[in-house]
């Protein structure tokens, strides 16, 4: 490089580094082209039906609850931690809110039930966070315990589904509003999009958000640089708990009532969506907006399979295969990335 013309050399480097940057950008956002391919694939097999506005709207609507729970998982993964309890937190807090409104404080306004849901989620998150950050409990074991405790806790609260909930409690997950041009559309879709944009904003634009990436990238370095890593981790778990609870609330509205199985089944899909959305299991990398792509990919595949009249029991197997494919893909991409970087 030293014997190139002094004027051309920087230009040359600039052009090359721009191309490299473009390739890296594509690799970092790979989920969207994959989603597009999946969508086109099912549209070809199900002409007319799959591309209908109604279908797309339904696809987004069914993704709302999972979307919130995926965000709950993603923020923990980005901080270099782990949360196995997101599903049971969603189910437990939604059930607690439902019982609060029907049994513990019947007649209380639905909004207070929503508050209960979010507080229960936040409290469980706080418990996870404090024990992990302050006591040094391994995140995997800690959240495995909370997974088991609160999955059981749901049944302790109620082994039956709770219906007859106030409209205002169900509103976030159930209501449909009329908007010109795209009307009518479920509010849950807006809530989900709001959560994705909101968390993306917090993680990419605020000091706290960048500290989450720093702690996830290298906790010791973050601490040496003066970041209060304990506080960051505790806050991450509280946010995760609140997001999981929001997911539980959305699912309750979607189902028209709180069921004991709401939420608990969402752990693996949430995890899968986060990973295929490019969130690194090692922490410090990934963009939460891409996990929306992961959520939508899972939604697209299961909607497609259902509409093709394929046995619904196959869906989990297919999701597993999708996860495996994603892991393989990201492993290859990672190696390619390393090579690309070492050429710089």
């Amino acid at each position, binding site marked *: 490089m030293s014997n190139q013309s002094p004027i051309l050399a920087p230009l040359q480097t600039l052009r090359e580094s721009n191309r490299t940057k473009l390739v890296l950008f594509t690799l970092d956002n790979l989920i969207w082209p994959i989603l597009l391919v999946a969508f086109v694939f099912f549209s070809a097999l199900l002409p007319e039906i799959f591309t209908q506005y109604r279908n797309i709207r339904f696809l987004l609507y069914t993704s709302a609850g999972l979307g919130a729970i995926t965000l709950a998982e993603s923020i923990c993964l980005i901080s270099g931690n782990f949360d196995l309890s997101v599903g049971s937190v969603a189910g437990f807090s939604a059930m607690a809110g439902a019982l609060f409104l029907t049994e513990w404080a019947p007649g209380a306004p639905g909004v207070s039930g929503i508050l209960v849901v979010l507080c229960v989620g936040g409290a469980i998150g706080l418990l996870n966070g404090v024990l992990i950050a302050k006591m040094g409990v391994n995140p995997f074991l800690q959240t495995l315990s909370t997974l088991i405790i609160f999955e059981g806790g749901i049944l302790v609260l109620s082994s039956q589904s709770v219906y007859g909930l106030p409209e205002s409690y169900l509103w976030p997950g159930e209501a449909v509003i009329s908007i010109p041009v795209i009307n009518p559309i479920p509010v849950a879709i807006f809530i989900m999009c709001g959560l994705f944009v909101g968390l993306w904003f917090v993680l990419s634009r605020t000091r706290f958000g960048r500290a989450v990436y720093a702690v996830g990238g290298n906790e010791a370095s973050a*601490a040496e640089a*003066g*970041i209060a890593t304990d506080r960051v981790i505790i806050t991450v778990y509280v946010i995760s708990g609140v997001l999981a609870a929001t997911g539980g609330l959305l699912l309750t509205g979607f189902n028209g009532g709180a069921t004991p199985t709401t939420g608990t089944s969402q752990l693996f899909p949430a995890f899968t969506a986060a990973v295929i959305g490019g969130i690194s299991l090692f922490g410090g990398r990934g963009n939460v907006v891409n996990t929306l792509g992961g959520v939508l990919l899972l939604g697209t595949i299961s909607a497609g399979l259902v509409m093709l009249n394929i046995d619904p029991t196959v869906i989990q197997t297919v999701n597993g295969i999708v996860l495996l494919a994603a892991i393989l893909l990201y492993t290859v991409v990672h190696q390619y990335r390393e090579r690309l970087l070492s050429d710089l």
Partner: protein
Amino acid sequence: MTVTETNPRIEVAGVQKRFGTVEALSDVSLTLNEGEVLGLVGDNGAGKSTLIKTLVGIHQPDAGEIRFDGEPVTIDGPKHARSMGVGTVYQDLALVDALSVAENLFLGRKPVRKLGGVVPVIDEETMTERAERILRDRLDIKLDPDTPVEYLSGGERQAIAIGRALVTDPDIVLLDEPTSALSKAAVERVEQLVEQLKESGHSVIIIDHNLEEVRSMTDRITVLFQGRTVDTLETEAVSRDDIVSMMVSGKPLADPATAGTGQSSTAQHSPSD
């Protein structure tokens, strides 16, 4: 001949630190005077890095005292140390690979602005601008502030770590092996930097295994051996062999004529607790 009046900025007196059964520091005492460059040498595992980490509050001493400007202090952590005017380059550099050069330079202290007058968001523009200035003026290297540090060479990474230590305009600078990954030319730049820092009144502690570098940069040298201070001597008064012999034997030099020149070195040895 240079030291006429000494004004201690940091005093470490009888500091101990153990990790489980490992006694990393058993009895460390030293003084960093205003405007001086103090070298800290010792074999691998002598406790040099542990001492630096204790000075910035990553570790709390089990016994002994740390004084800043004569006042005994408890340092909560790196942020506290920074607020007291201490900048640190850690041996492990403390960089986050996945983050950009600019983000690493401002790790833990990003400039913010108020979005719409209320929401505090990171002021990317100011951050990039200041990062560019540090890279150009302080470190003299050509790097895009947006490059993730994982793309950088070992020397560039070390430069970023040095840059970060200087971002806050500290008046005390702690350098834990800042030159270990550097080429000869880059080492010279660090030597110049240390010189500049000294000239502008900074106090510097530098750890370095290259004794020639230590001898060319420092005013005094403190030797550590298995977690305790062996002696502190005027750089001009000791030979390379003297330092090596103290590092290896853990004993002060026998010759009193040489050993005596270390100014307050003997005074530091008297246990103050």
